[in-house]
């Protein structure tokens, strides 16, 4: 059959619909999330000095190097430019004490990248939040290093804050509630207490979180349900027994709570994607966090709560609205 095509003209470019795409790309989202973490990092540097910055750089370099190495080994195309390695490294540094030895940071980040993500085939395929996998492995392996704290020494302006020598949650555990009575909440809020680089300053983390919400990089579901459920749970116990359980707001302002709610529990890829799924996920995180904080062996429960809920993500993805046009199935 003779072709009806005039071959005089060049073939047109063929691609599949749709032919217009939204501007946002994966790396776009990653770098925006990185930007959102800058306030937290700056707060860390302000309170803990340039050791914090050094640690962040170590982790970021390690993460990118491991990512590139694994992508090379497994024969995938190099995708380090999308910023996910940098983000992973930065997040890892932010949830560590500024005091950890360099090799702990390197080993933890490497575990996060390799065991947490690349072994599953890279971004999008891993079931667990890689940062938390790396952290949890390091935490149970080198628990001394991972729980060594220093007092904040603001670079300028503020007086060295607080009088407690280790993070508030640890103080509640070891010295009891009374030890926290005189601690100004403002110190907790701006981060003038011992803690990890990126979680001390609730204010800085909140700025980043609101930026993410405003840019619609995350939705409200997880952070709101996470924080709300933790606060309500805390409220109930506080009302029952204020001698044993602290004011729930203290629990929100201390530890990893806010960073966890805005950055770790919203970590795309390892959390549910439907609205109801995300809300249940958030509630689960909030409750497990508080259960571990109250009665568990670890002082802060955020990391393990999120890891546990990560495991339920495939189940929670089954909780979702009725699809269009689905008629009731006749049994």
């Amino acid at each position, binding site marked *: 059959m003779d072709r009806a095509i005039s071959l005089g003209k060049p073939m047109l470019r063929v691609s599949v619909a749709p032919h217009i795409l939204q501007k946002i790309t994966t790396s776009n989202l990653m770098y925006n999330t990185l930007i959102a973490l800058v306030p937290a990092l700056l707060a860390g540097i302000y309170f803990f000095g340039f050791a914090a910055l050094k640690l962040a750089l170590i982790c970021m370099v390690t993460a990118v190097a491991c990512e590139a190495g694994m992508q090379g080994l497994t024969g995938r195309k190099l995708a380090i430019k999308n910023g996910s390695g940098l983000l992973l490294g930065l997040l890892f540094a932010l949830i560590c004490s500024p005091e950890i030895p360099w090799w702990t940071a390197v080993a933890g980040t490497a575990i996060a990248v390799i065991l947490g993500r690349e072994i*599953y085939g890279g971004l999008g395929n891993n079931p667990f939040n890689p940062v938390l996998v790396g952290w*949890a492995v390091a935490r*149970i392996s080198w628990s001394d290093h991972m729980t060594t704290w220093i007092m904040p020494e603001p670079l300028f302006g503020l007086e060295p804050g607080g009088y407690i020598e280790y993070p508030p949650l640890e103080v509640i555990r070891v010295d009891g509630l009374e030890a926290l009575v005189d601690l100004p909440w403002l110190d907790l809020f701006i981060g003038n207490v011992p803690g990890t680089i990126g979680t001390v300053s609730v204010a800085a983390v909140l700025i980043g979180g609101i930026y993410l919400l405003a840019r619609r990089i995350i939705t409200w579901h997880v952070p709101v349900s996470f924080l709300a459920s933790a606060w309500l749970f805390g409220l109930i116990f506080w009302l029952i027994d204020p001698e044993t359980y602290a004011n729930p707001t203290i629990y929100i302002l201390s530890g990893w709570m806010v960073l966890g709610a805005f950055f770790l529990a919203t970590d795309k890829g390892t959390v549910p994607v439907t609205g109801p799924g995300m809300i249940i996920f958030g509630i689960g995180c909030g409750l497990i966090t508080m259960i571990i904080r109250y009665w568990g062996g670890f002082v802060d429960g955020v990391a393990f709560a999120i890891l546990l809920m990560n495991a339920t993500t495939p189940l929670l993805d089954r909780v979702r609205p009725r699809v269009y046009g689905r008629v009731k199935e006749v049994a």
Partner: protein
Amino acid sequence: MSEYLLLIVSAILVSNIVLARYLGNCPFLGVSQKMDTAVGMGMAVIFVVTLAGMITWVVQYAILNPLGLEYLRTIAFILVIASLVQLVEMFLQKSIPALYKALGIFLPLITTNCAVLGIAIINIQEEYDFMHTVVFSFASGVGFTLAMVLLASLRERFPTARIPTTFAGMPIAMITVGLLALAFLGFTGLVD
């Protein structure tokens, strides 16, 4: 009452039978590729473990101890469990065919599942009384099922994940169990 609650929390979350006590791994990894088989196996294990826990407890305290035959515990228990599974199979087949259809293929696998024998032995070693034995056995079965359902739901995503061929299949399943166990470590200390 709270004592039983602690026992249940301990058996399901803190010292999960597979994730912390390393029991029942072969069926755990063997039939967790699909959700429906995982649920079926889980149910079968709950059922058999509870029954076997009760019967072996009676065997230990009513037969072996009085006769001074404690050293025959292993052989006695395994025979009890093997016959129990046979009986359950025959009973279900005749009386509750629907349940048999759902659990049938899993029952023979359970005889060689160390979770069942393991729980029976733990009941004796921990010197649980009869009620504790029932509660602990049942809760351990539930813990097994919980871990199994979580693993199956995670594994159902692997066919569409770009797992390096070196790790595809059993290796990645094993690593995932490891990470699941890592997550469950968070419950450490809830119950001493």
